[in-house]
Structures are given as C-alpha cells and as structure tokens.
C-alpha cells in the first residue's frame, strides 16, 4: 500500500508538469503577446469618452 502522501506528491508533480507544458505551449502560440490589449478588451470607445465626475479636476 503506497503511503497516501507519496501518491499525492506524485500526482501533484505530474499535474504540475502538465500545467507547465500547457503554459509553455500557450506562450509559444502567442497567447501572452499582447497582454495590455487583453486587459482592455472590455472597453469600447464610449467608455473612453465618458465623463467621470471623480476625474474632473476640482
């Protein structure tokens, strides 16, 4: 009977390695090339034109 802690360690490392490989593959594919544009995908032109009272100088 394999000690349970050992089984978890092995499984964790295996999943971790898979996760790293997935990450490397995504990087190669260019998923992280334009990270700033990704953060701005929620905005459209109207958001930028809106007046916000807390931005107006006193």
């Amino acid at each position, binding site marked *: 009977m394999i000690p349970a802690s050992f089984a*978890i360690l092995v*499984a964790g490392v295996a999943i971790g390695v898979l996760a790293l490989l*997935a990450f490397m593959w995504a990087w190669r594919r260019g998923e992280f090339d334009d990270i700033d544009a990704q953060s701005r995908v929620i905005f459209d032109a109207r958001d930028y034109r809106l007046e916000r009272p807390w931005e107006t100088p006193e």
Partner: protein
Amino acid sequence: MTRVWLLLIGVAATVGFAAIVLVALPRVVLIDLPVPTELQPYTEAQARGRQVYIANGCLYCHSQQVRDAAFTTDVLRGWGDRASVPSDYVYDRPALLGTMRTGPDLINVGARLPDTEWHLIHLYDPRALVDWSIMPAYPFLFEEKDSAAVQPSDHVVRIPVQRAPAGRVVVAKPDALALVDYLLSLRRLYPAPVTGMSGHGPPPETQAPPGTTGAAGAADATP
C-alpha cells in the same frame, strides 16, 4: 475556439485532481476499515431516531467527534476517553460530525447520560433540567393529554411540576422515543481498532481500559 476548450479542460482538471485526492483516494485508503466488534448497527428504532435528529437539525448545534488529547481538551472535558476514529462511524450514513458546539458534543452522550427519562424531559423542555440552556424546546415531539385520556401503552413523561402544562399529562410520541433510543446508542468507548493509518488509534499498550466514561479534571458531569 481552442482557447475555450483549453479553459474548460483546464478547470475540469483542477477539480478532478482535487476530487482524486480528497474523495477517490480516501475511498481506497478507507475501504478496509475494521468494524469494531463492540459496535452494533443501529436498530430500527435507533435508525428512525437518527432521522429525527437529522430532520430537526440537531447537528447544527451539536458535534459528534472527540478530538485527540494531544491536540486539545475534548477528552479532559469528559466527552470521551479517546479521540474518535473512522471505525466509530461505519454505520453512519452520513456521519453527523457537526461543526458547532452551541451544545455539547454527543458522540458519547449515551454513556454520559444513560437515562431515558432525563432525555425525554430535556427534549420537552430543556430549561426544566438545565436553566442556562438555549437549546430549543421540542414539545411537538410530545402529546399533551388529559389524564383521563392516557392509554396504558402511552409513555408518560414526568415533567417537573412548575414546568408541566397545567392539569395535563405529557406523553412521548414515537419520534421522541426513537430519538432518545438513538441518543442512548451514542457510546464509542471501546478501544480504537488498530489500523495502519497515520494519526489514528493510540498503540494498543496505551489504550484506556474499556468502559471508563471520562477523565479526572472534567469540570462538569452534566453535559
């Protein structure tokens, strides 16, 4: 499109991994749990009483687990003479470990308070016996009858006069009797079966003698 499927596979993998570690692996580890010879399966009445316990939410104020003496003071408080082990719960589907101690731990209440009448009065009106108690009263598990209407088969509960309903007799319904049957079955004082698992059961040489109900130093004999 690929991104979507990658995301879905990734999130499924994380929960899958956790399910393997916390649900599947324990299944494998716990499959050969020794069934203690001293522990009997619940009788029909006790099983019914267990359902009454669940239906009325007793587990939201009462736990059913004694924590290890090396970790904390459950044993010193008199709630058991050893830590609870997985074998104690083999007949519990599901185990009612509980997460609150608004009221005391009950895993050994059958040993601490083996008196049926005490439990019946306590369920009908907790403050009749424990005046500082905030436990809800359960009069709906009982029937209040005129003394003339009492049948020979009725289980009459002798409520203290100052708390009893005027001029009437309190009779326990089957659910109340079943619940008390279940509570009295809650005793796990036999020695913990030895297993190979870490963190469970003291080595056989240091077991407490069977049948002891509490250690010296407990500040209260009542719950």
